[in-house]
């Protein structure tokens, strides 16, 4: 593949730049910043895409975005192996503006017009990566240096795996992993490896299996032993049965021994005893009991006899009185009557006492009723309702009359009192009248007035008019005085004003009122101290007012004086008008004149009147002088007393009138009272008559009923309950009398009866006598009872005695019978016989018991054998034998049991072995372990195979493949270094390093090479690899100033190599060095030179 044209649209500093590369070797020359590196990058970018922002993170400049903005990208025209011209365009945005891809969008246009993208481009580029291209095909010194340290795995691996196809590190890593795995799986003589451990546990299982194999032998032995045991058990069982039988017989013998001996002796004794046939049972006891009974019977009959005798004697001794029985009924009835009689006596006494008391009570009651009264009166006065009513009627009438009389008396008394009082009052009034009259006469003035009054119609009003007129006169006089004063003041002021015409001195205006005020005040104070407060106050007030008035006036006058200097005049108080002083003064004077005239008129009138008055008065008392002075003096001094006297007189006259009225009134009242008194007297008279009538009727009534007079109806009424009581007492008394008579009759009859029975001698004490008789009777009766009882008893005893003798007879008969039965003549022989018979029976019984027991024990048939056995052997001998047998038996049993146990054990063990799965389980386990081992083994083998395969392949590679690349590289390197080095070596197994090889075969690590040589080495490697790569793709080699570190000679040889290479690869060499350019041009005249 070749690049024939480059068109930069916009890339880094370059913009709209085109280059045409015609030759296989192109030298691009340009100074620094001409855009060489940019161009190299541009080619890379078009082919592999823009560097992404991520990649260019710290080398943003490497993205080469156009500095001035605008289109970013460009195109290349390539010619591939098939000579096709292919246009490759790449821009940072899609051609159809769909979006942006960080690597840009490529468009590949083939000559036939077909269009492709990245995929097609990648095919053209043989699928190599951008990185590889950068390092291997388009590189500068930087990339060369990178190669030096083989930092980049991809590059490093590519260097080696040009024919390897794999990164050596991967290979080495894989080898290491495989080795590790293998060693984990197994190591000869290892312990912790998987297989080693499994082997160990397999061994353990094997051992266990070997052990369990022995079970078969054990099993057989067990089976044999089991069979032997079986036989032995059978033998022993037989033996045991024999022994058992024997032992049982011996035991039986031993058990039977006692019984057997007993039987023998019983039989011997029986043989000796006589035979008493049909011997009655218990003959002795029966006989004895009969004897006992006999004895008892004899005693009983004796007792009976004794008792009979006793009873007879007793009967004889009882003395009976038949006489007593004759009076039995009588005595009994009397005895019964005793208590009644006693009671009657008691009742009699009580009744007597009661009667006496009742009587006493009756007498007392009668006395209470009336001293004259006795029972007959009482009986004849029934306390009937009529009587009662009558008495109360009387009582009512008398009461009414009495009450009326009392009322009348009271009324009369009142009226008399009233008359006395009125008389008294009348007298008092008369006294006061006279008293008043004397008082009025004592008053002079009043008398004068009266006198005057006779002349003048009405002195009172006259005096009052006079007083009024005088007061008016005084007022007018005062005003005149005042006015005169003012006129004077006015004049004075006028004079002062004239004097002080040129100066204003208002001091006087103040001084005057103050002094006036002061005078007033002092006057007032004086008046106060003298007690005339009213005047004082008036004076003070007047003074103050005056002072104020003066002050005001003076102010005004002062003001006036300002306006009208040198002018005099009078001013009226309170006037606002301004008058000329002359006018003012005349007004005042006029007024004064008028008032004085008025006053004088009034004075004249007064004088007339006073004179008149005097005349009137002097008619009585002296002469009168018609003069004002006198008049005035009188007015001042006498008018007031006159006035007072007049008032007093009118009051007195009023009082008189009142007294007169009162007296009249009283006289009227007196008259009325006298009238009333008369009426009352009449009524009292009537009442007295009625009372006398009632009193007569009452006395009649009392006499009729034998009441001693004078009893009031009240007393009679109060006696009525007593009368009633008297009645009841009387009745009671009658009843008691009846009962007394009855009691007396009863007692008398009893006493008579008693006397009849006891005789008169006992009559004194009838009760005692009767009681004694009663007792005697009772005793007699008791005796008779006892006799009867004794007779009864005697009969019974006789009966008993008879029965006893009968029983005795039969008893004796039975005793005789018994003796006969027992074949005995006497009691003694009976006893002997009885003992013998008892013994025989006992022995017989024993034998009867023993024989079947023994038979049962030996099962009947062997009785004789038993006899023989027991006869032959003693007890101890037998016991010994039995003991021995028992012991042997126990031993045999034990043996059998042990054997059985053993046999059971064996059978169990054998069964366990027969069914035992442990062996097969172990075998299965072994197989499982084996399986797991084999699996591990296979794993091991597979890994070992893989490892081996890997190693073998590596060997092959090292031997056959690697030299191919290195050979070519070595060739280039040798040429470039002018055979200072013979080649390059890559020791594969060790670290991925290259060595330069000296002619003597010595390897020099790249690190130790000079810079130039090292670069030549890498260059040689690159050329070789590019050649190697040519099998895949033939790409142009773009180199950026790589020759700068070469000396001239080596540069030339290097250029030669390049020239040779250019026949197969397009070579584009960038340089900024002139010497390089020249050397190249000199060496390779056919190259195309492009100058930037």
């Amino acid at each position: 593949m070749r690049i024939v044209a480059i068109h930069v649209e916009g890339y880094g500093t370059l913009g709209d730049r085109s280059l045409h590369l015609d030759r296989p070797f192109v030298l691009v020359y340009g100074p620094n910043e001409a855009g060489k590196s940019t161009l190299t990058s541009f080619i890379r970018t078009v082919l592999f895409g823009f560097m992404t922002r991520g990649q260019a993170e710290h080398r943003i400049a490497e993205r080469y975005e156009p500095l001035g903005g605008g289109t970013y990208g460009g195109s290349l025209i390539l010619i591939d192996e098939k000579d096709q011209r292919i246009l490759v365009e790449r821009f940072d945005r899609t051609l159809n503006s769909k979006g942006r891809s960080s690597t840009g969008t490529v468009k590949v246009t083939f000559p036939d017009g077909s269009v492709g993208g990245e995929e097609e481009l990648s095919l053209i580029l043989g699928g190599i990566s951008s990185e590889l291209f950068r390092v291997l095909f388009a590189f500068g010194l930087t990339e060369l240096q990178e190669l030096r340290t083989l930092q980049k795995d991809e590059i490093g691996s590519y260097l080696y795996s040009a024919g390897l196809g794999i990164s050596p590190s991967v290979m080495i890593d894989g080898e290491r992993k495989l080795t590790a795995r293998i060693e984990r799986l197994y190591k000869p003589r290892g312990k912790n490896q998987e297989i080693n451990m499994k082997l160990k546990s397999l061994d353990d299982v094997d051992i266990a299996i070997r052990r369990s194999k022995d079970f078969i032998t054990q099993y057989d032995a067990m089976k044999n032993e089991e069979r032997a045991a079986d036989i032995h058990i059978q033998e022993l069982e037989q033996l045991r049965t024999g022994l058992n039988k024997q032992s049982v017989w011996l035991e039986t013998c031993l058990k039977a021994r006692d019984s057997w001996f007993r039987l023998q002796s019983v039989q011997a004794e029986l043989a000796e005893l006589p035979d008493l046939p049909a011997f009655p049972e218990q003959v002795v006891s029966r006989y004895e009991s009969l004897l006992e009974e006999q004895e008892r019977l004899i005693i009983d009959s004796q007792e009976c006899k004794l008792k009979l005798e006793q009873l007879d004697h007793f009967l004889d001794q009882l003395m009976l009185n038949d006489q007593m029985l004759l009076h039995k009924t009588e005595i009994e009835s009397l005895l019964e009557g005793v208590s009644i009689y006693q009671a009657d006596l008691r009742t009699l006494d009580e009744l007597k006492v009661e009667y006496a008391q009742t009587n006493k009570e009756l007498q007392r009651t009668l006395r209470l009723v009336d001293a004259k009264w006795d029972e007959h009166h009482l009986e004849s006065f029934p306390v009937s309702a009529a009587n009662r009513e009558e008495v109360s009627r009387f009582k009512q009438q008398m009461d009414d009359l009495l009450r009326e009389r009392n009322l009348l008396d009271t009324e009369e008394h009142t009226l008399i009192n009233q008359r006395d009082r009125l008389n008294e009052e009348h007298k008092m009034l008369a006294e006061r009248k006279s008293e008043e009259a004397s008082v009025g006469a004592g008053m002079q003035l009043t008398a004068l007035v009266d006198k005057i009054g006779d002349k003048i119609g009405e002195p009172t009003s006259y005096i009052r008019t006079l007083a009024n007129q005088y007061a008016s006169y005084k007022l007018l006089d005062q005003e005149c005085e005042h006015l005169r004063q003012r006129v004077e003041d006015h004049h004075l002021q006028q004079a002062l004003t004239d004097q002080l015409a040129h100066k204003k001195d208002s001091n006087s205006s103040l001084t005057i009122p103050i002094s006036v005020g002061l005078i007033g005040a002092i006057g007032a104070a004086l008046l106060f101290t003298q007690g005339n407060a009213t005047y004082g106050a008036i004076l003070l007030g007047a003074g103050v007012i005056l002072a104020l008035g003066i002050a005001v006036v003076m102010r005004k006058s002062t003001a006036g004086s300002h306006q009208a200097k040198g002018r005099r005049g009078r001013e009226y108080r309170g006037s606002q008008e301004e008058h000329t002083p002359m006018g003012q003064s005349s007004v005042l004077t006029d007024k004064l004149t008028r008032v004085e005239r008025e006053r004088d008129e009034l004075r004249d009138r007064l004088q007339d009147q006073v004179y008149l008055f005097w005349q009137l008065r002097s008619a009585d008392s002296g002469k009168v002088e018609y003069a004002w002075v006198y008049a005035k003096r009188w007015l001042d001094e006498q008018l007031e007393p006159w006035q007072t006297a007049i008032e007093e007189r009118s009051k007195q006259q009023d009082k008189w009138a009142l007294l007169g009225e009162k007296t009249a009134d009283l006289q009227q009242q007196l008259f009325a009272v006298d009238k009333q008194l008369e009426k009352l007297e009449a009524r009292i008279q009537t009442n007295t008559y009625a009372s006398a009538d009632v009193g007569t009727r009452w006395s009649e009534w009392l006499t009729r009923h034998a009441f001693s007079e004078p009893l009031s109806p009240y007393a009679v009424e109060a006696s009525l309950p007593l009368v009633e009581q008297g009645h009841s007492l009387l009745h009671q008394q009658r009843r008691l009398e009846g009962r007394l008579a009855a009691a007396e009759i009863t007692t008398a009859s009893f006493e008579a009866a008693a006397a009849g029975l006891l005789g008169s001698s006992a009559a004194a004490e009838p009760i005692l006598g009767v009681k004694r008789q009663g007792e005697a009777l009772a005793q007699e009766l008791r005796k008779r009872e006892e006799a009867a009882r004794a007779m009864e008893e005697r009969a019974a005893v006789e009966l008993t005695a008879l029965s006893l003798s009968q029983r005795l007879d039969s008893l004796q008969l039975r005793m005789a019978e018994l003796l006969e039965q027992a074949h005995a003549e006497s009691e003694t022989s009976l006893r002997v016989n009885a003992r013998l018979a008892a013994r025989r029976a006992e022995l017989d019984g024993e034998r009867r018991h023993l024989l079947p027991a023994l038979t049962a024990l030996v099962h009947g048939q062997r009785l004789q054998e038993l006899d023989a056995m027991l006869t032959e052997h003693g007890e101890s001998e037998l016991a010994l034998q039995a003991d021995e047998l028992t012991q042997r038996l126990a031993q045999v049993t034990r043996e059998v049991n042990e054997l059985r146990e053993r046999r059971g054990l064996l059978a169990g063990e054998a069964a366990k072995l027969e069914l035992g799965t442990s062996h097969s389980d172990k075998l299965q386990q072994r197989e499982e372990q084996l399986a797991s081992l084999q699996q591990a083994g296979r794993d091991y083998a597979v890994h070992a195979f893989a490892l081996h395969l890997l190693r073998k392949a590596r060997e092959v590679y090292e031997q056959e493949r690697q030299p191919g690349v290195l050979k070519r590289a070595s060739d280039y390197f040798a040429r470039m270094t002018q055979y200072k080095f013979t080649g390059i070596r890559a020791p594969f197994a060790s670290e991925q390093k290259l060595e330069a090889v000296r002619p003597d075969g010595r390897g020099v690590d790249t690190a130790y090479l000079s810079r130039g040589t090292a670069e030549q080495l890498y260059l040689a490697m690159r050329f070789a690899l590019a050649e190697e790569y040519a099998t895949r793709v033939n790409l142009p080699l773009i180199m950026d100033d790589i020759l700068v570190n070469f000396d001239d000679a080596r540069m030339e040889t290097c250029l030669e190599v390049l020239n040779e290479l250019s026949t197969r690869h397009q070579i584009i060499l960038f340089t900024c060095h002139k010497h390089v350019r020249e050397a190249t041009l000199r060496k390779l005249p056919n190259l195309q030179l492009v100058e930037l």
Partner: protein
Amino acid sequence: MQPFRFLHSADLHLDSPFKGMSHLPDSIRDRVRESTFAALQELVTLAVQEQVDLVLISGDVYDLADRSLRAQIRFQKAMQELSIHHIPVFIIHGNHDPLDGRAAKLSWPEGCYIFGTEQVESVLVEREGRGAIARVHGISYRTSAVVDNLALKFQQTDSHIKQPVFEIGMLHTNVEGEADHDNYAPCTKQDLLQSGMNYWALGHVHTRKVINGGTNSGDTCIVYPGNTQGRSVRECGPRGCYIVDVTAEGYTKLTFHPLDQIRWFVETIQIVGMENEQEIKDALELKMQEVLKLADGRSCMIRLVLEGRGPVHDLLRKGSALQDLLDELRDQEMIRVEQGAVFIWPESIDDRTGRVIDQEQLLEQRSFVGDMLRMSRELQQSDDALGQFRDEALSSLLLQSKVAKVLGADTANEDELREMLRAAENLLIDTLADGGWNG
């Protein structure tokens, strides 16, 4: 000749453990342990049911020379049962239960004949009312490793001619050196054909096989009935015995009857196109259900082989993913086992999957991996090279011969080696891919 019927079985391997199983739960182990016995019981039942005239057991009644007592007792009981039904039984002992092995001294019931080791014995079988029906010849192994050609000892004698009956030879042998089995009492087919037997009742090879003759033929029958119960993944499919009907003409008719209790399966599942674990699991479960249906109501052991290339390969390799998957399947199965129901127990999952990678292309490449693969393929072409490669690769292991034997490293056959090599290829690719290589 009298027509009659007999039962031919061999290799009971009573009380033999199952091979290749690791980490069996107890309940499964119990079922496994009983399986060989159950198969024997099935045999007895079959014999009684089919009213056979005799029963042949051609060696390896027990699994080991030191036979288990339980096995012997159970076998004795089985024999007693047959005896009760008046079915005679003829037994030879093989390499697994030679007569020199430890055995309990058990008494064998009437009608049970065990051939000795010294010489070929012949027994004329007579049935009540039918007279002689067959003559059975046989010889037992004295020791576990008999390398003589015992077939040669079976010779026609005069008696054969005097009283011609159906001749049956019983031999525990490896005819023509069957590779999968130990080459004991080796003989050739020819040897057998020349012996004058009508029927060779062979034992030893566990895979059912009729070497000569067969149904409805008058030819000499040479028959391996196979073992009665499969015990490892190598013994897949139905296992049982033959019932042979002999006609009056001496024609034979063979009918196979399965006796096995637990049947083994190896099933392959392709992972191509699968995307996740769930899909694998579903596929495995589906496969297990299918297999269970095939097993006619028997429980099964199954090895699940995952094959193919796909993205799930990486998922399976991750951590213990494969084991987890297995555990999960087993857990599900455990529920059935606990219930005593028929189960299908995943013995293992064999992961033979590979990365999605164009191996063919790699093989073409002149690259390291290409070299490696090519090398592996070359090795797989040649057994010798393979053996040599094995010896080189496992040199450190093979030095420990005992260990190597236990691990089966030295006994692995070429196919296994090839399989391992393929696994190694995948492992290498995976390992390199883990390191970052991506083809």
